[in-house]
């Protein structure tokens, strides 16, 4: 993991985190928010019941590098691609990382839909930070 020297990095990674849709399970996303913050990133935590529109507003206002959305209700196949498309439609080159319960067999479909990373239960802080950093590095 990067050391806290990242705090003086002139361009720390900025991440917008949100629960997209109705699912209220926010334990994982809050833990991820703290892991990313402790990993030297800037976290904009939007919380519950966000829409693609509210997330895009935040991405524009905060000049975010990555969007992280979390789903534990089996909605990822619908909502994941929808988020990717909405960002593209808005002309934003911002990768999407999904966290939550995503069966392995869905990962190829997620990748094909343009989702930059998937984090499942038990992911360590190092894995979370590395995944988000790798996603940020894919920006053109």
């Amino acid at each position, binding site marked *: 993991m990067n050391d806290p020297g990242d705090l003086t990095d002139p361009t720390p990674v900025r991440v917008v985190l949100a629960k997209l849709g109705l699912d*209220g399970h926010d*334990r994982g996303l*809050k833990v991820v928010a703290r*892991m990313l913050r402790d990993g030297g990133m800037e*976290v904009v935590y939007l919380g519950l019941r966000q829409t693609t529109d509210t997330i895009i507003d935040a991405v524009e206002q905060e000049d975010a590098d990555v969007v992280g959305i979390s789903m534990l209700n089996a909605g990822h196949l*619908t909502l994941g691609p929808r988020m990717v498309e909405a960002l593209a439609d808005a002309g934003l080159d911002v990768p999407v990382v999904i966290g939550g319960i995503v*069966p392995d067999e869905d990962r190829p479909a997620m990748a094909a839909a343009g989702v930059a990373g998937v984090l*499942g239960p*038990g992911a360590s802080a190092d894995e979370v930070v590395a995944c988000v950093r790798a996603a940020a590095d894919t920006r053109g």
Partner: protein
Amino acid sequence: MDDQDHRFRTLSGIPVDPVYGDGPLPGEFPYTRGVHADMYRSRLWTMRMFAGFGTATDTNARFRELLAAGGNGLSTAFDMPTLMGRDSDHDWALGEVGRAGVAVDTVEDMTDLFAGIDLGAVSTSMTINGPAPILLAMYVVVAEEGGVARGQLGGTLQNDILKEYQAQKEYIFPPRPSVRLVTDTMAFTTAEMPRWNPVSISGYHIREAGSTAVQELAFTLANGFAYVEAAVAAGLDVDDFAPRLSFFFNSHNDFFEEVGKFRAARRIWARWMRDRYGATDERSLKLRFHTQTAGVSLTAQQPEVNIARVAIQALAGVLGGTQSLHTDSFDEALALPSEEAVRVALRTQQVIAHETGVVNTADPLGGSAYVEWMTDEVERRAEEVFAHLEDLGEGSLLEGVYAGIDSGWFAGEIADAAYRYEREVNAGERIVVGVNEFTEGDDPESRRLLRIGQDTEDLQRKRLATVKQARDEAAVAATLARVSADAAQPTTNLMPALLDAVRARATVGEVVDTLEAEFGTWVERAVI
């Protein structure tokens, strides 16, 4: 004991007494050792498996399988749109219909859900909170249209809105009007449904959101006291409703901490109800609870190892004196539970009940120095939380709980505990088998998961359109107007208006929209 049948002998034939040790015994105040004198010797816990997915017809089939496999209570999981009071054709519902539970839009779905099941004979638990009174009204209408009187219905409505603001986050309206809906259902079932538990005060979700065992216990009992204060303020007599209050706890991995938590819960409730709220009916003092094993403890890695975790957690619930139990399926960290995994989970309970002999004597752990110390310690720590909330509420637990919700105190405490745990696991200070130690042997290829297709959503939307087409729109509008008028009168019980509305085939979403116009919407302060 000579004529005792073999059930109450050990495997080797040694006869076992109903209880060991000195008083207070099980069934005696303060019920630390259990609410019944002979506990599971006379009646096992209810093996109540939580189920719900797809359309009502899909879930109905799962219900019938569970009853045929020896389960004796039903427990309904609703999908996210239903839990949030939105219809399947709402924008918010896209991608969520029937996925994490069953979709219910109108009373017609409720009819399908319980088709072929005698509602006068089973007990049904419904896990629903924000729109709980609407779903209760639907259940009553289904029963009555099928010839079963509401007074014969047995079951439990979760209807615990306070923990939604603290942990599970499935709230719709702000806390105060929501608590009014809770007291309305309490008053209604107290008067008309004597076999119904109107609120299941739930620590489960608080724990799943990341709390410690002590926080789970303390926040849950504080919420219970808050409902008591609200109901008394609404004019109910404590001994009229308190016997039907029930609780729902998590059973996690730390075996003796869990047992101590369950024992402390009974003791605290009994003392507070008698000494603070003046209850005199013994049934008001007895804390009865449902237990579910800890979903959050299950791992996606080597998921079959979860069978062992569930068995140990379930045993803690039984040794803690639970009245009913749901055992989690080993594949829940991967997907919604498959049929095979649900069967293994139910069989786990049956092994505990019929093979281990732990049911032969009440509170077999009572008198253990460690268990008694743990019970005392958990109680002492919970009392510190009550004192804090009482401070916040200037003497009122109800006001203290409202204050803690408004300020984000509960959510912050829970998030702190969750992060502390994750850091310990990350640092290797806590071993999670298969995750940060003993990781070889994971075989993702062998998994057979339950999948819910997109066709569920399409089917459900068609179903909703059909019901809407067939109903009398003027009747729907008239009943919704009454819901609106009654909602504006804080002292009017909303249940009669809700019964009329759902009988006229008003949808869950229409009723919620009507109430929302009167009550407003709750948006939480986002804390990490």
